[in-house]
């Protein structure tokens, strides 16, 4: 029996440990959900021929490894070198031009001279601190967004670690049609471009976002109500309405799983929404549905009535999206206020 189980264990080992990597299969498994089939772009940036012509293999490989902290793109640090190379080869197959190769030398520019150039030419799209202006990420398919492609977050540590000076300089020179980035060829001298790159290297990411200390690291907000079940539910609905939320019809947690007579009526979910905010949030991150709708549960257990809501800050961390984290911190305060009001 043990031998059979061990044999089964071996068979369950990831194929990557014993098979040659298949770039197309790896791309479809790890990348296509965001970058779409053949790199057309979706939640993730498009990988069009124009873009691929500007990016070195080294940059793409490092981007796969480093990801973009706070900008949705996860870090695929566990992929082997061979797997990353296989993905790269597959992606390169979409373009008939070879991958550019850039020297790895550090350009010796003056960041002090680069700063005013940045403020004049780059700030409008990339933001004062280099975080990238505009809401959301990737290209829009379902909802309208300000930019078809969001301007790169130049201060992102993933970008800073992946992009060489020479590659950044080349993009400044050539621009990028898909993101409406103009070409600065002939508009800026080589020295000015070098100074600009030097300034970009001084950009630092904004400080990390934290929620309330007392709830940090906990999966849920949980409060005991001094009232009975029905009264607590009524209080909660009133508090939510007062906080400008629309309340959906109440659902029992077992509803749809048990028949109506058998369902536990002392376990309910109060679902609520502010559609204007929801629309805005789906622009920031279309994946938000994985945690929708907003819900506070009321449960009676052993004679006690408790209110439970997901810890929205901790849940938002799963999305690797700084913009979402900013909203989650605000939402945390609102939800806790509502829960407190209902249990006062």
């Amino acid at each position: 029996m043990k031998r059979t189980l061990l044999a089964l264990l071996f068979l369950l080992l990831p194929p990557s440990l014993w098979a040659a990597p298949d770039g197309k299969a790896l791309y479809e498994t790890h990348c296509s959900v965001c970058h779409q089939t053949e790199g057309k772009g979706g939640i993730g940036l498009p990988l069009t021929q124009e873009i691929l012509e500007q990016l070195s293999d080294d940059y793409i490989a490092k981007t796969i490894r480093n990801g973009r902290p706070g900008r949705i793109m996860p870090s695929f640090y566990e992929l082997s070198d061979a797997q990353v190379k296989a993905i790269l080869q597959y992606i390169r197959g979409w373009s008939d031009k070879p991958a550019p190769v850039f020297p790895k030398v550090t350009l010796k520019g003056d960041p002090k001279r680069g700063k005013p150039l940045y403020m004049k030419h780059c700030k409008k799209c990339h933001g004062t601190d280099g975080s990238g202006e505009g809401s959301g990420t990737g290209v829009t398919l379902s909802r309208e967004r300000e930019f078809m492609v969001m301007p790169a977050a130049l201060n992102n540590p993933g970008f800073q670690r992946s992009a060489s000076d020479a590659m950044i300089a080349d993009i400044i020179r050539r621009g990028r049609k898909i993101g409406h980035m103009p070409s600065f060829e002939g508009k800026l001298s080589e020295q000015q471009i070098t100074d600009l790159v030097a300034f970009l290297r001084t950009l630092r990411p904004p400080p990390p976002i934290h929620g309330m200390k007392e709830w940090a690291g906990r999966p849920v907000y949980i409060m005991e109500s001094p009232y009975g079940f029905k009264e607590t539910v009524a209080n909660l609905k009133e508090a939510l309405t007062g906080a400008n939320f629309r309340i959906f019809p109440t659902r029992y947690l077992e509803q749809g799983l048990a028949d109506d007579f058998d369902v536990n009526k002392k376990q309910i979910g109060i679902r609520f929404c502010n559609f204007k905010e929801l629309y805005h949030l789906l622009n920031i991150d279309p994946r938000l549905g994985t945690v929708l709708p907003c819900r506070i549960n009321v449960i009676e257990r052993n004679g006690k009535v408790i209110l439970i809501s997901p810890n929205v800050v901790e849940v938002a961390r799963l999305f690797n999206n700084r913009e979402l984290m900013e909203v989650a911190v605000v939402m945390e305060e609102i939800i806790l206020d509502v829960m407190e009001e209902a249990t006062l």
Partner: protein
Amino acid sequence: MKQIILLLLLLMAAPLHAGQKLLMVRVNMKAQQTMDVLKETVREYGYEVAHVQRCDGGMAKFHYKSDFYRVLFFGKLAEVRGILKAYPELAPFLPLKIAVIAEKNQTVLAAMDPTALARLYGHHPVLDVQFARWHSDLQAILEEMRTFRKPE
């Protein structure tokens, strides 16, 4: 023996990449058709469909235009009942759910990775196994959806 079974479960649940906190796939079908197939697939894994949240409909009522955007809730009654009895603090994450997001003629399916909750629940030995089971089921369901081909 128990250790081997536990190891098997955890290995099956090991994320393809450890940094992964959301499970997502792209399906080469329109959203409504994807939803129909997803409901069937979820049932094949022993789950009941609890309900569908129509986020798109809600937004449309308030004049916010959106493509097909719905959330499928599903669970196993005995499992949900048992967990809520022993661990009511898991209530916000039950039943399980998958978001169905239209992207033109294709559809993105996304779910929270249950194993991402393990840290928040302090790596509780019983819950860790439960999270691993859900992860394994969700990943298998999503993989079936990703590779689903319409019958000719």
